[in-house]
């Protein structure tokens, strides 16, 4: 297996981008990544996108965007695994380069979510749940995560304030990220007073609906060395993919995210690293409880202690293991297909020492965890600077 490096990243601003279509957003991120990498020839394009059919009425996306980039002819494939589509797009591109099928791959993620009204967006996202066991009975994602939160609170004594601490931290980080959808300081009281969505989750426990795109250029380390010049070389040293039952009813446990644990174990094994080696992490905080459960499943904290860890500031910038320095899905925004790719872009910025005010000092090993649905899929990548 060949070694693989990330040599370019590109992001659009995240938000309610009413003036730009999916293809325009995608091309903006793709061009930024190509410019960052200094390449204009590709062997392959992968596109992570959850539901362009429901959000904008467009399928057959990979060829569409390849053409938009003026690169019709290049092989392109869309991959989908709900909100983990972006992480999966990287996994797919990584496998191609590692196997020697491609040398330079453009890995992208995109979602255009605000062309439809809130009810349609909720329905479209809801198709990532098990329709027969969950969706048809009326439950939506806030309800599913509310049940996970309730179970975690019952089993481990996780408190309402600990959930809120995730939102407070991630919004504070998002203030330092120019691409973030929200630049607002959120207090504990703001979270606890925000509109109830699905008990115990309130509005400020939930990630928003977002338009945005993210892109990476990855290459074999051999090719990468020719291209990066003086900049640090960031290698992908671990990649793990795992599944779990989509429906909560068919899970072995409601208090741990087994797919995250398995994907993490596989990525750690490939890279030869352990949780205590990680300097910075981006995790999938689609709801505040998800970040707490992900930090436990990834082994940063013991099961049941993720809540107290965030409360003590262990995951804040300057803490023991900074989590979501980008602001996370919570503050940066969650264009679902783009999220997993944007997480990698943040880790690359951190490892290159280019993260500005939100830079984690001395970060050399980073981890990104992307998740589909309520935990039915998880993708974990570990990146290291050479």
């Amino acid at each position, binding site marked *: 297996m060949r070694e693989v490096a990330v040599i370019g990243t590109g992001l659009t601003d995240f938000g*309610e981008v*009413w003036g730009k279509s999916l293809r325009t957003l995608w091309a903006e991120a793709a061009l930024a990544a190509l410019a960052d990498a200094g390449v204009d020839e590709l062997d392959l394009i992968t596109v992570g996108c959850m539901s362009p059919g429901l959000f904008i009425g467009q399928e057959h996306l990979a060829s569409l965007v390849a053409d938009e980039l003026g690169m019709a002819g290049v092989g392109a494939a869309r991959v989908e695994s709900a909100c983990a589509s972006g992480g999966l797009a990287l996994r797919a591109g990584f496998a191609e380069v590692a196997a020697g099928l491609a040398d330079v791959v453009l890995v992208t993620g995109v979602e255009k979510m*605000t062309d439809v*009204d*809130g009810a349609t967006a909720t329905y479209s996202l809801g198709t990532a749940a098990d329709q027969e066991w969950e969706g048809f009975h009326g439950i939506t994602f806030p309800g599913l995560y509310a049940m996970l939160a309730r179970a975690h609170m019952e089993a481990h004594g996780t408190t309402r304030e600990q959930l809120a601490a995730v939102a407070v931290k991630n919004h504070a980080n998002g203030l330092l990220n120019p691409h973030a959808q929200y630049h607002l300081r959120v207090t504990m009281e703001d979270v606890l007073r*925000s*509109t*109830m969505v699905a008990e115990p989750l309130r509005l400020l426990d939930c990630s928003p609906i977002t338009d945005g795109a993210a892109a990476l250029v990855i290459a074999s380390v051999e090719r990468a060395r020719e291209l990066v010049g003086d900049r640090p070389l960031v290698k992908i040293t671990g990649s793990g993919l795992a599944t779990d039952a989509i429906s909560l009813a068919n899970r072995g446990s409601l208090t741990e995210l087994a797919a995250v644990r398995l994907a993490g174990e596989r990525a750690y094994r490939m890279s030869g690293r352990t949780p205590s080696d990680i300097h910075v992490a981006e995790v999938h905080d689609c709801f505040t409880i998800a970040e707490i459960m992900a930090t436990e499943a990834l082994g940063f904290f013991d099961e049941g202690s993720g809540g107290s860890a965030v409360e003590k500031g262990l995951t804040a910038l300057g803490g023991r293991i900074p989590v979501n320095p980008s602001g996370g899905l919570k503050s940066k925004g969650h264009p679902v297909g783009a999220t997993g790719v944007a997480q990698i872009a943040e880790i690359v910025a951190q490892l290159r020492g280019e993260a500005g005010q939100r830079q984690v000092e001395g970060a050399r090993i980073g981890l990104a965890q992307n998740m589909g649905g309520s935990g039915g899929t998880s993708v974990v990548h570990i990146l290291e600077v050479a």
Partner: protein
Amino acid sequence: MSDGIVGWGAYIPRRRIKLEEIAKVWGADAPSYKRGLQLYEKSVPGADEDTVTMSVEAARNALARSGGVRPVQIGCVYVGSESHPYAVKPSGTIVAEAIGATPEVHVADLEFACKAGTEGMFLAHSLVKAGEVEFGLGIGADTSQGAPGDALEYSAAAGAAAFIFGADPERIVAEVVATYSWTTDTPDFWRREYMHYPRHGGRFTGEPAYFRHTLSSAEGIMAKTGLKPSDFAHAIFHQPNGKFPMRAGTKLGFEREQLQTGWLSPWLGNTYSGASPIGLTAVLDIATPGDLILLTSFGSGAGSDSFVFRTTDRVAEVQASATKTRPQLEDNKIYVDYGTYAKLRGKIRMGE
């Protein structure tokens, strides 16, 4: 030769429904709606009240303040609304007939979401200014529609405002200093034929629609006239809820005191075509001679009309000649429950 408003009048139904009563039915969180939209209650039209009846009442109040304008002297009647009782057949003919302005009168119904009222005012003023008519009547009135459970249901309300324009210097109470319109094709809110209720583009109705148009229109008329916020005694902005007009006004540099008098939506709701015009009636009710007043409407689709008025000595003389707006808003209220409201608003489908 200058022209301006010679008489104004409003009509607000007596019935009200509280926001909590609506929220209770739909399992919504009333405190966060109140905080978010700054809405407390809204007017509800009775069984015998519609756009036509409210327009007639408002027009009669305007006539009462007009210093004896005879209805037959009115050369045009324009009714702006998105709840005309008929899809085909004018509201304006009924209104013109009821106040005695027929038959030598130009009549038209207007529709431009929430700004149809100021369009009628704009046209009536323009025909007077051109010398085509002696007096012109512009009305904004609505029994606004909001689908059951939709966010609009917390605001969609009923009311009317009427303004008679003329060029007779003995009668002018507020001279039209300038007008200005700012319009683009921005589809933020619409109702197609045969649809009972309008649809809206969620948060798209905020920044790209309401704020972009109202702010551009208000800035445009201030640039045209060389006036600045501190020159005005009062400013009235379209009020789809309590929050938007205050935010638009303060963003432009107006003080809360300048906005307060015409800010009725927290207790009235959104009367659509009637909204900013009724706000203007509340301002004229208490205005003092020489006041500069800014009026900026907004209609989805989208556009924004602005007027600058300067009151004359006569304004104070006719304020008491008809029922004022604030007492209609604050006195003699009848609170209804959701069931009664649903019946009155035609939300219950009757058997054959």
